[in-house]
């Protein structure tokens, strides 16, 4: 069943892709095949393989139980939040909390995970910013 749903999404994606390719505007330069031919080929392969998934699905993959699924979604949400807040809050603070969340979910005690988070954030800041000179998000406090 998963493969059928996946195939359905793939087919929708392929149709969208071919439609999006059909509205590509020509610029003042032209060549023989133009900018749409190759995307059409790619879209066709997407569509054909998706139809194959619907027609001949594989065995059901081992999906995680609901709780583990929530784990994945929450972790993704935390990473999204991290990406959004990074430039506003600054590297050290946001990294402390993001790392603390991940290490907590992987089984560290709550208080220890804050410490692990802080050490990771400071460690990366020292190694990559102070020693190696990489640009990290600065935030209002400058770190």
């Amino acid at each position, binding site marked *: 069943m998963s493969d059928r749903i996946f195939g359905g999404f793939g087919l929708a994606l392929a149709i969208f892709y071919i439609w999006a390719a059909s509205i*590509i505007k020509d610029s003042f330069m032209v060549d023989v095949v133009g900018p749409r031919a190759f995307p059409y080929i790619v879209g066709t*392969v997407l569509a054909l393989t998706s139809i194959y998934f619907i027609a001949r699905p594989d065995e059901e993959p081992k999906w995680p139980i609901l709780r583990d699924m929530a784990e994945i979604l929450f972790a993704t949400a935390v990473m999204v939040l991290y990406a959004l807040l990074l430039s506003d809050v600054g590297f050290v603070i946001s990294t402390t909390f993001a790392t603390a969340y991940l290490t907590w979910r992987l*089984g560290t005690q709550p208080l220890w995970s804050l410490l692990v988070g802080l050490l990771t954030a400071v460690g990366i800041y020292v190694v990559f910013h102070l020693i190696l000179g990489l640009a990290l998000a600065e935030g209002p406090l400058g770190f």
Partner: protein
Amino acid sequence: MDTLSLLFDGFAIALTPQNLFLSVVGCFLGTLMGALPGLGPANGVAILIPIAFSLGLGPIPSLILLTSVYYGAMYGGRISSILLNIPGDEPAMMTCIDGYPMALKGQAGEALSLGGVASFVGAFVATIGLVILAPQLVKIALLFGPAEYFVLFTVAFATLGGVSSTNQAKSAFAAALGLGIAMIGSDSQTGSQRFTFDHIHLYDGIDFLIAIVGLFALSEVLIFLEHHKGGAAGTTGSAKVGRILPDFKMIKSCIPSMARGTGLGFFSGVLPGAGASLGSFLAYSLEKQTVDRDGKTFGKGDPRGVAAPEAGNNAAAGGALVPMLSLGVPGSGTTAVMLAVLLQLNITPGPLLFTKNPDVVWGLIAALFIANFILLLMNVPLVGLFTRVLLIPTRILMPVVAMISFVGIYSITGSTFDVLLMVGFGFAGWLLRKLEVPLVPVILGILLGNQMEVNLRRAMTISDGDWLVLVGSPLAIILWLIAITGFMLPMFIGRRMKSRIEDERKTSETPLGD
């Protein structure tokens, strides 16, 4: 003799203090990443590309650093295979079968040093093979026109699933997905905006580094979260390292095994779509058939069962660089990441690289020779350093990996949009892995998409729109035959190969590709 003098110049480049230092650092980091389960050569190198790039290292120093990591990870994979029965990375899987029983018998130290020596033999001979074979392949590649190049890229995608692939439709879907992503942005030929929907962040297309780090590194973190694997790898094993002195008698008795493993590994590395995992698998199976037909000693701690696959996977790693450097077409996940390194540095691999930038090619090859000696030193007398790393629990390690991925991408792009995109790729990568859609074709599609299209359009321009030009030369027809065979073969033998590989290995890791 031309080759030798070029190689000599290469050594002059690779032996400067800075490059030598980077080589040592790369070897160290590589062995470390290889040793840690969950961090293999592909995602290890992927995380380091943006960092090497934002450090402002030049092309040759960055290449030396990252290829040392690549070779190092191939060496390091055996450490946790032998000590813990958990492959440190995909190609080290076969080393578990005899390595771990050796460790249980109290011979962990011998197994580690034997594996180190076998790795050295495999990698060293393969690097010599690279020196000999790559210039020959370049001569053939110089005959290629745009049409042949287009077909060559098709060969790469058709064979990438490998002979153990069970569902070729999924490989094809993955390749099309990658190619489709590569089309986003302004068209290199005419400048038309494609698939950008007037979104300013998409005008330059999607940076392949974002896709690679997201798909490889972040999806791995999610896999660990899903399985709640937070403990230290080092606590599950019962084996003690014991003495780490090489047992010369044992090593001597394994020389024929190493030779067979090296030959087979190099061969499968050069072939498209085989890679290091298959190299070590073939090396192990052949070795078992040659010296232990009745299955008396193999699987119970036979040193030859460690020497053959270790020589095999390291030789395959070197062999895989042959098509990558001389044709610009990688045959495995890790070499796809190495291709990303070159593209990021604005170096286009392929036959012209050998004539236009011989300093890059030969500096790189010389660095590989040097890396091998450094790695032999690190992996035989100093291997104790790395066995301790296995005590770091993954609940601390994986978040650090995630954060370093973020640091790398943020430091080159500085854009929230790109970091979000990376998280998106991470989640998509997890989903695709669940559905058993291989990720390597996606990456390769993103990397090669534009070149593939450019070659198609050039061929069309030359032929004035006649599509038959794609089958217009004997060379192109041969390449089509290879592509079709490579794509069809797994449909008949894929299931059998896969079940054979799975019979041999006992642990169930989600494969990432090598």
